[in-house]
């Protein structure tokens, strides 16, 4: 060879090395997202349909029951959640692709902890979903929600939290489900009902008993409710409308505090992340 060989040295395990691995797996998700514009468009179709088509259409019927609040404004917080959720699902699905295209193997044989790979993957997926959520955030003006800085920061933080939990769930599932069709099938089977039950499209009080039970069991409920409160805090509507449209989640008549709701989503995400790490570490 023309020049002398440059020898590199692979260091032993260290916290810095693990952080670097997390960062690099995270960055890969962002690079992939940037190069996959089609995905950005396709995952937005569903939330936009809900927001503008369903919202505008049902508006004809619900003038009276929404106390004059535009239905689009009412379901906007739910759409903020669902758009992030769909994207996070796709992000998590990429780990199934990684397995099919062999890339997972490249990461699994690297001299770093499996947990670093999984954490990087989950954080990367959450970031991508959060970025995509920004598009829906940008639509706030179209549904009469103001662009208040506190509101936007709050929405972004809630979206990131939800995206993290959903990605963790997806990665956990991907440890076991190795085929893309099965994975997407399962995700649809779980995510779509979760979305409908969560109250993204309706207030969660005075529901039939069976639906109330399902709603309170649905983790997405505890992400939609704080999101709705946050948005409603920033729009100008009557107290009656607020009470009817943003009743809050109750357990046996006890109003669940917003902080607890957020804690539920966060703990669930951390627990699923833990299971995902455990599953990937245990596999060969």
């Amino acid at each position, binding site marked *: *060879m023309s*020049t002398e*060989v*440059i*020898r*590199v*040295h*692979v*260091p*032993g*395990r*260290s916290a810095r*090395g693990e952080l*670097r*691995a997390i*960062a*690099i797996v995270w960055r*890969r998700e962002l*690079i*992939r997202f940037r*190069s*996959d514009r089609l995905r950005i468009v396709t995952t937005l179709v569903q939330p936009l349909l809900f927001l503008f088509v369903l919202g505008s259409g049902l508006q004809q019927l619900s003038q009276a029951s929404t106390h004059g609040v535009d239905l689009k404004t009412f379901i906007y917080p739910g759409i903020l959640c669902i758009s992030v959720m769909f994207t996070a699902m796709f992000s998590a699905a990429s780990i199934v692709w*990684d*397995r*099919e*295209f*062999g*890339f997972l*193997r*490249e*990461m699994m*044989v*690297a*001299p*770093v902890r499996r947990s670093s790979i999984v954490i990087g993957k989950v954080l990367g997926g959450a970031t991508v979903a959060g970025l995509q959520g920004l598009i829906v955030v940008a639509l706030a003006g179209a549904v009469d929600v103001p662009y208040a800085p506190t509101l936007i920061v709050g929405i972004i933080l809630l979206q990131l939290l939800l995206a993290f939990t959903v990605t963790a769930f997806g990665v956990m599932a991907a440890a076991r489900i*190795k*085929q*893309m*069709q099965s994975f997407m099938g399962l995700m649809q089977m779980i995510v779509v009902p979760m979305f409908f039950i969560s109250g993204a499209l309706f207030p969660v009080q005075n529901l039939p008993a069976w639906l109330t039970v399902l709603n309170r069991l649905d983790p997405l409920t505890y992400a939609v409710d704080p999101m709705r409160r946050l948005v409603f805090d920033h729009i100008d509507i009557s107290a009656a409308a607020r009470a009817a449209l943003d009743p809050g989640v109750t357990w046996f008549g006890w109003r669940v505090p917003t902080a607890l709701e957020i804690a539920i989503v966060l703990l669930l995400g951390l627990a699923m992340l833990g299971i995902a790490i455990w599953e990937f570490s245990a596999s*060969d």
Partner: protein
Amino acid sequence: MDQLPPAIAVEELRKSFGELEAVRGVSFTVDTGEVFGFLGPNGAGKTTTINMLCTLARPTAGTARVAGHDVVGERDAVRRHIGLVFQDPTLDGYLTAEQNLRLHAGLYGVQRDLIEPRMRQVLEMVGLWERKDTVVATFSGGMRRRLEIARGFLHSPRVLFLDEPTIGLDPQTRSSIWRYIRELQEAENITIFMTTHYMDEAEFCDRIAIMDHGEIVALDAPESLKAQIGRDRVRIETGDDAAAIAALDEQWGVDAQVIDGAVSFQIEEGEAFVPQLFDRLGVAIRSVSVSRPTLDDVFMSFTGTTIRDAEESAASHRNRMAMRAMSGGRR
């Protein structure tokens, strides 16, 4: 240099999958800087062995040390010192060649200031430096393989494992891949451990082990293996074939036949025999060719299958893989 521990030391290594004993107690050592080939029909246990050596599978029994570290007890240390090129591609097609390598360098903790020059070096060696900003999805099969090989070398491993590095590639690409592997190996004195079922490629190895039914049935330099099993084949074109055949029988007791228009026979040390032939045959000779027994002959004599059968089974294996990939299956 020569005080280094062997690059690979394997003792009585075994692996069972339930009832099936895939690897049945193999032992061998590979020296630093050696190119060591694992040959065998599909299902012989080659990939299982390689997987154990690169810590992807746990041995059922026996020990293996790679780069001086135990593959079970010091898994991490082994991983730091080995490079891997798998049978199936493991590149991220969405990323460019450079991004793929940078990702690898990051995962392996390569010092940041060395990433750029080292990346340039390995990419130049495989002739892909100019294509570093190209998205890998647009690469041909041969280019991807070269990139994977460059990636395998990126972190200066002591041992590079190549599992069927040229499977599915056309002959021209295969030979260029081999040139790159050899050049990189010579430049860096890296030990290469590879599996293949292409006999001609085994010729590139310093030593080969032939594996069959989970056991090593032969292990030596290709030349020695060929010498063990047989004699060279000599073909002569003569003015009078019948007279030549008679003379061969009479003078040396050699049984010759006319094959494809030339008198053909087998004899030990064929090249040394040629001068005698001119001295004593007594028939005009127009041309002579001496060929060594091929590794195909070696393979056949040790495993009882022809390499064609092995290749056919490999081809059907590839088809199965392709079908599984299409149906979204997993290995």
